[in-house]
């Protein structure tokens, strides 16, 4: 053996030592905790605002924002692999040798170590015959050794138990190698495909940035649907996809969560969904007193600009359902769908930019019409949306007219005379036939007088119609290491069961001639589960009695 090997051997052995393994496991456990407390792969600006510049840079340079891929964490895993390898290198040959070599004879001083000993005497002097009969006891692997006047028998059960150790440790190595292969040769990323659209590129987070990768095929989303439970909770997200490979449609299939599609080694998963550029029509109710209502045709992710006033609407999202908690604070939650709504950022000369959510339907509570609703967020954050009841139900053209008629008529009448003005306005718009919800109509119109006049905008944008287009959010992954991981996992489970449940049980029989007949000494040793071994040893003695045709003449020691 070379000099070099000799000099590094103690160092290598350290790798295989136990305390190191324990320390390594605990360090890995503690390190893993960090990433669960600190949210991973978030937006960098969020981290910056959360921790401030100093800590942000400290954490960032330690790779804590993507710590499971940080060099030091990978290093720890590598260290674990090294440690596992040396454990195996150090122990496996010895264990294999131990499992092979079975000492048949038993020295006298070894009897003291035995958990069970028993002695019996039989008549006759044919040692061979007795040994043969004893060897017929099933369940034990027997070996025999003959000496002058004495025969040793050794029986083993669970002789291969040390394979448990070898399997478990090599399985972990296999799993880690599989994981490394996944990271090294596989990919995992997302793509958003609008209904009717096509996509061939995935994007994924790497470190602090986003990267993209071309797929060897294109994915077309034919449609995307959501099915609901009767409770209103989503039951199923289903995309109908077509795979297009080099211009040819090769495969069309539905995917849902839990049932991915597999093509050319790539798995395609249903991961999310969103608006894929729905067409929305808004009615713009002019607030310049002209009573005009214009129509704006927009599309999600595009900006509509009103030529007349120069006000623009950057349409950001559309949702056909908006389930909101309608219960008063502190009451049991009561969810209700308040219908389709469009989100946009409204900008214009002299206006503070705000985010607006405009609903298509008037707001109804217990069948009572509370008029059209918009929500406004001054910060632009969805969490800051505040409800804004406009007053009139603008889906009803008559109420828009009534509002104007009332504001003209009430202009000259003193406070308190509002009722008369309202009655006059109603009969102007509705004629003699009073609408059924006359009282609510009054409240709405009055509300309109308060709110609409306070609006700084040149018009009120109200969602009128829509043609919804979803995008389906797909996750595409290729994982060449996965099967390796499964093999490792199977080995791990199997090995653990052997390691924890199989005990190596050894029994010895020493048959020797004595003055009168023969003496049989029996000894037993197990490395674990001694309770069960008690039973097995007694069972062996019973079978021995049966096979030798004896009644019990022996005595336990």
């Amino acid at each position, binding site marked *: 053996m070379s000099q070099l090997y000799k000099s590094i051997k103690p160092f290598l052995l350290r790798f295989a030592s*136990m305390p190191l*393994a*324990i320390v390594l*496991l*605990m360090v*890995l*456990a503690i390190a*893993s*905790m960090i*990433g*669960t*407390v600190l*949210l*991973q792969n978030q937006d960098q600006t969020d981290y910056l605002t959360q921790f401030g510049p100093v800590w942000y840079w400290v954490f960032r340079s330690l790779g804590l924002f993507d710590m*499971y891929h940080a060099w030091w964490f990978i290093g720890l895993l590598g260290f674990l692999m090294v440690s596992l390898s040396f454990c195996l290198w150090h122990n496996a040959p010895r264990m294999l040798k131990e499992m092979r070599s079975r000492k048949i004879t038993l020295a006298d001083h070894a009897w003291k170590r035995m958990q069970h000993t028993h002695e019996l005497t039989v008549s006759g002097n044919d040692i061979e015959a007795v040994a043969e009969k004893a060897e017929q006891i099933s369940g034990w692997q027997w070996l025999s050794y003959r000496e002058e006047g004495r025969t040793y028998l050794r029986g083993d059960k669970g002789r291969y138990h040390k394979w448990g150790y070898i399997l478990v440790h090599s399985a972990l190595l296999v799993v880690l190698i599989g*994981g490394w292969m*996944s990271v090294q040769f596989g990919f*995992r990323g997302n793509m958003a495909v609008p209904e009717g659209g096509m996509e061939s590129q995935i994007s994924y987070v790497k470190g602090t940035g986003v990267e993209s990768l071309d797929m060897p095929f294109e994915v077309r989303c034919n449609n995307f649907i959501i099915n609901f*439970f*009767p*409770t209103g*909770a*989503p*039951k*199923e*997200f289903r995309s109908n996809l077509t795979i297009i490979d080099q211009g040819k449609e090769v495969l069309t299939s539905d995917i*849902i*969560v*839990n*049932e*991915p599609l597999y093509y050319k080694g790539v*798995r395609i*998963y249903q*991961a999310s969904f969103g608006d894929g550029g729905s067409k929305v029509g808004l009615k713009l109710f002019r607030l310049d007193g002209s009573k005009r209502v214009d129509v704006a045709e927009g599309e999600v992710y595009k900006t509509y600009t009103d030529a007349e006033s120069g006000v623009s609407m950057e349409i950001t999202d559309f949702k056909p359902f908006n389930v909101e908690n309608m219960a008063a604070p502190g009451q*049991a939650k009561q969810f209700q769908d308040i219908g389709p709504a469009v989100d946009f950022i409204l900008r214009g000369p002299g206006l503070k930019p705000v985010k607006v959510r405009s609903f298509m339907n008037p707001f109804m509570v217990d069948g009572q019409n509370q008029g059209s609703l918009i929500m406004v967020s001054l910060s632009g954050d969805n969490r800051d949306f505040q409800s804004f009841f406009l007053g009139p139900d603008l889906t009803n053209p008559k109420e828009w007219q009534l509002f104007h008629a009332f504001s003209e008529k009430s202009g000259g009448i003193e406070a308190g005379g509002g009722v008369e003005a309202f009655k006059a306005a109603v009969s102007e718009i509705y004629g003699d036939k009073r609408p059924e919800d006359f009282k609510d109509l009054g409240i709405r119109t009055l509300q309109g007088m308060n709110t609409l006049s306070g609006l700084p905008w040149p018009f009120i944008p109200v969602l009128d119609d829509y043609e919804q287009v979803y995008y389906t959010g797909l*996750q*595409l*992954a290729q*994982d060449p290491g*996965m099967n390796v*991981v*499964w093999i490792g*996992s199977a080995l*791990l*489970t199997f090995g*653990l*069961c052997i*390691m*924890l*449940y199989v005990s190596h049980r050894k029994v010895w029989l020493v048959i020797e001639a004595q003055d009168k007949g023969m003496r049989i000494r029996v000894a037993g040793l197990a490395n674990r589960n001694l*309770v*069960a071994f008690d039973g097995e040893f007694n*069972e062996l003695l019973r079978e021995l009695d049966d096979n030798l045709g004896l009644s019990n003449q022996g005595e336990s020691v």
Partner: protein
Amino acid sequence: MTTAVAPSLISGIYQGRIVNTRFWLYVGLMAGAMALAFFGGNGYDEDGYLQRLLSMQGVIWGGVGAILGVAASFLVGGSTQPGRSSPAVVGTVPWFDGLLVMLLLMALFTQLEPHSSLVSYEDQSNLVSGKIVMAMNLLFLFSAVCYIMHLFAPESFIGKMATMAAWGGVYAGGTSLLLRWYESYLFLDGEIGHAPVSNLYEVFILLFCITSSLYLTFERRYQAKALGAFVMVLVSGGVFFGVWLDSIGQADIKPLVPALQSYWMKIHVPLNFVGYGAFAVACAAGLAWLFRDRLERKGSSPLLKVFPSLDQLDQLAYRSVAIGFPAFTLATILGAAWAAEAWGGYWSWDPKETWALIVWLFYGAYLHVRISHGWSGKTLAWWAVVGFLVTLFCFVGVNMYLSGLHSYGRLA
């Protein structure tokens, strides 16, 4: 008089040909039920599975499986002599028997369900399972009290009552869960039916049952009744948590989110709780060790006679971990397999996954120091206790405090 007959009768059905045939019968039944899930009709269908299992189709598939199983028992043979059956058979059959009893109880209780016109999704308080859970809660609490009293009066009948109450709780819990499965089909035209392992409330009941039954098996095998006081106190703590969950409306049967609509849920979740339950028993054994150690150092105490020796407690803790660790390992692996099918990768460093890894590393280290390093005693007792705290955080804490892909276990 009856006491003399009963044990021989009971041990009779756990011996020889009877237990062997029964084992294969159960294996056949399960294989039939699984084959029905995958090959009967148009593949696996979460919503209709239980109904199909209970219909003629289920009888046919299960029956064929059972017949094949019995046939296999004659082919495989195995020992027909009393006391000579394989430990795997003797070890598993009682669990299947218990499950069968729970199924029968469930069938019985379905008859007590309110009339279909009175069952509503909005108000589920009139369902029978809720009442059985109540009974379970009381039985477990009563059992805990009895086990503690037993420490001071080891000779009295209280010990027997404690064991009986605990068994009663296990059967009540198991029955209530099966009943919930049935009840989930009762409203909304059976559209939201699913196995009762989908939220924190349900898995808590599962955890009580697994923990208690593991302990009771130990109690019978190793005469370690003093341990019961510790196990059942842990379970009682859980019972209070369950009652609190119920009080904030978390006990209702709710539809499954799409990510959970998979047969993997029925495998992954219960197996995980075998791990958690075993770790709970290990923790109780660790606590008992520390308690006895304290008593011993204080001097003589009448309690010392009741307690198993330190060495036995140490063994019991190890045995529990030895059951829990492979189960937890397999559950985590199967969870990874599910993730590979639902989330696009077998490992995503999601907080729940990561904490499962932490638990695994923790007990892996426990086994290392114990098996290869020969440690025992105080350090390991503490290790078992702390290990369960880590497990508890993995189980409940992650859902409550951290966000991630497992967020459906969250308190809404």
